[in-house]
């Protein structure tokens, strides 16, 4: 699948969430023997993202736990602030990466 930067960031965030919760999921009785392989997949994906964008992602993640969050009904699901309508229309096109003015997280429009 050919992904753009925004989609790669979403996939990276999904992977990081998965890696982060591996212990909890293992405690519930799930098989997590592929942990090292998952780490490797994470590094491969990270290598496909431009350096400045990746370091922005890492900085946000270190500070706010989640660097990129969904936007639903124009609400940032990181901090629940409504996004300006002008931003929403362009955000949906998935071409540019926008950030929430309030919490600073990168945004991914769901609708």
């Amino acid at each position: 699948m050919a992904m753009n930067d925004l989609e790669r960031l979403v996939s990276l965030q999904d992977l990081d969430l998965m890696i982060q919760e591996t212990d909890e999921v293992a405690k519930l009785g799930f098989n997590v023997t592929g942990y090292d392989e998952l780490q490797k997949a994470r590094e491969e994906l990270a290598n496909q993202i431009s350096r400045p964008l990746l370091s922005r992602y890492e900085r946000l993640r270190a500070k706010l736990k989640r660097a990129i969050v969904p936007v639903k009904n124009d609400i940032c699901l990181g901090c629940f602030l409504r996004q300006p309508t002008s931003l929403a229309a362009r955000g949906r096109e998935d071409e540019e990466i926008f950030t929430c003015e309030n919490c600073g997280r990168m945004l991914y429009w769901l609708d």
Partner: protein
Amino acid sequence: MRKSELASHFNPALFIPELKATDKEAVLKELLDLFVKEKHIRNSAIVLEMLHQREKLGSTGIGKGVAIPHGRTVAASDVLIAFGKSTAGVPFDAMDGKPVHLFFMVIAPPNDEGNVYLQILGSLMPILSDAENLQRMKAVREYNEFIEVIRGE
């Protein structure tokens, strides 16, 4: 988590009494398509990628004919569970090597209040380790019959 609360995360529109899929990949897609149809997910390729990665971590086929593909994704806003059943069974690299008949796909946003996502996974486990529940679920034809088993009725 109470059974009634667990039941509230299921939805008649996310229910397939007889899956068409006959392999692992097709099952993931068929269940994921329900979320797309219901507009819970806009970009299914991203979520499918996440589910593939999750299977890389370890098969979500927990044995006894049950699989629980699951994960958090930035491409979702609600915690929802889809259910699908295959009478013939589907090879799914399950822990016990047996084909899987009952599928529970749990999709969650990056964060959710009260960590409902992990609670859902945790409360599904005991229900799905009960042989009588599994027998009943394998026989369901309608959503109402199914949700009764989840509710413990």
